[in-house]
């Protein structure tokens, strides 16, 4: 069971309205894995995440969560099924306190909310001290923690992270990647979209390189780091 496919995407074509951005994506996340999607701007990295969540038009293809087809699902239903989604920007409610942010993440839950909040404060001890502060007053790194904790308030079957380290200082970036590993150790499979390719691949068990709406290269994180083409394209290597 531990290595069944949590998320399986096959031959996915999707886009905004009639514009096709994803042209046949194949990707899977096993239930113990961290999977990273890297690629240049405009390759459709975020589009993959958004189509899983039902935020845009899936033209054809399959998306299944633990074997259940979820193509065309409404976003609130997707959240209820246990998809923890952290958008790239505007991912917290700035005028709500940290605790209130977590409560909003638990909107679709009916039981065990306060227990889950306690679990989140164990996972993110920094947030516990500031629980009654409004989230808008926190630093960028801490906001990202709030966003992740808020997303994890559902019974997470998978976590989707859209560029979690964008705009953060290197110190916070490292902290975020450590947190991602910690969340994964707690049993949550993770699909991560990243610009920060090197660190993402170091963290991930598996990586996909997306170019122009389809996957060009895939492999374990280590393999991709050592792949000369990938290195030249994304990791700033000169040779």
């Amino acid at each position, binding site marked *: 069971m531990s290595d069944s496919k949590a998320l399986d995407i096959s031959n996915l074509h999707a886009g905004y309205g009639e514009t096709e951005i994803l042209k046949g994506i194949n990707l899977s996340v096993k239930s113990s894995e961290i999977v990273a999607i890297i690629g240049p701007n405009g390759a459709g990295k975020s589009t993959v995440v958004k189509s899983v969540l039902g935020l845009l038009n899936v033209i054809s293809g399959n998306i299944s969560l633990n074997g259940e087809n979820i193509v065309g699902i409404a*976003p609130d239903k997707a959240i209820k099924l246990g998809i923890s989604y952290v958008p790239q920007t505007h991912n917290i*409610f700035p005028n709500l306190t940290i605790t209130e942010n977590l409560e909003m993440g638990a909107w679709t839950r009916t039981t065990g909310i306060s227990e889950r909040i306690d679990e989140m404060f164990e996972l993110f001890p920094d947030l516990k001290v500031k629980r009654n502060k409004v989230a808008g007053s926190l630093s960028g790194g801490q906001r990202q923690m709030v966003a992740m904790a808020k997303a994890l308030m559902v019974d997470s079957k998978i976590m989707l992270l859209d560029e979690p380290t964008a705009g953060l200082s290197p110190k916070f970036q490292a902290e975020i990647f450590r947190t991602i590993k910690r969340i994964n150790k707690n049993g949550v499979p993770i699909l991560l979209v990243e610009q920060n390719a090197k660190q993402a691949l170091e963290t991930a068990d598996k990586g996909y390189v997306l170019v122009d709406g389809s996957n060009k290269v895939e492999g374990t994180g280590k393999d991709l780091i050592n792949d000369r083409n990938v290195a030249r394209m994304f990791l700033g290597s000169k040779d």
Partner: protein
Amino acid sequence: MWETFGFEFVNFYLIPGLVLGCIYALGAIGITLTFSILRFANFAHGEVMMIGAYFTWTAMILSNDLFGVPLHPLVAAAPAVILAIGLFILVDRYFYKPFRSASTIRVVMASFGMMLIIRSFVQAVWGPNQLTFVPGIAKPNEMVKNLTASIDMMILVPNKHFWIIAGTLIIMLALSWLLTKTKIGKGMRAVSDSPELAKVSGIDVEIIVKATWFVGGFCAVAAGVFLAMDLQMLETTMGFRMLLPMFAAAILGGIGRPFGAVIGGLVIGLAEELSVYPWFGNGSLISPGYKTGVAFTIMVIMLVIRPSGLFKGRLF
């Protein structure tokens, strides 16, 4: 000192200013909530205040004529609140919701049309002329008068003003509880903060929209009835005349800040009344005819120097 300065200032300017401020505050709460949660300026808000007052008056008349039971306006307002909230929700479902995914200006125009429809409806049903809401002269509360006179600071405050100020305070406390302690209230603040994130957090936005009309409708009827109690009469333009100062109050407090709207309402109400006080010499500072200009001036100054309002509201 009291005789020459305080008596006139407190009784004829300060208390009426506070009362007017309470009415603006209640109306501005609905405006600021709709503006921040549904993202449009609801021009029909004043008309819901007005029709709420007409419903209340009708309930008072019916109760008196059919059962011989005279009702206090605040009791008769209960069915009016239900009708007004129902009206808001129906209007939203059939006139605003179809435009919601399009540009905001269409919803604003729809609300402008709704304003004219509601006012014409009231004119057709109740007639275009003024109606007496509560007859007679409002006498000052004897207890307060005697108590304050005994310490040489006589305050003349009619019961109707008591009800208005106390009622506003109670509604404020209830609203504060709703917004900070209940799931639905926190959800309203969340949608106001970021509707996109609310959607991808699994928050049921439709429920939040209904709750917004519920709270907005309740406060609007309260404001309309308080206004009718204060003026002791009803007319079909009473809501429309409140619209500008209520918008000014919402902007002054910061869009999306219900408590900002309350402060904004009180400031505008007091500023309007105190602007005609004879601060210098014997004549009023500005001619009473320009009173309504005060709200407009405050709104324009605020939009120029600090468009986010006193409490850092949303910018559009």
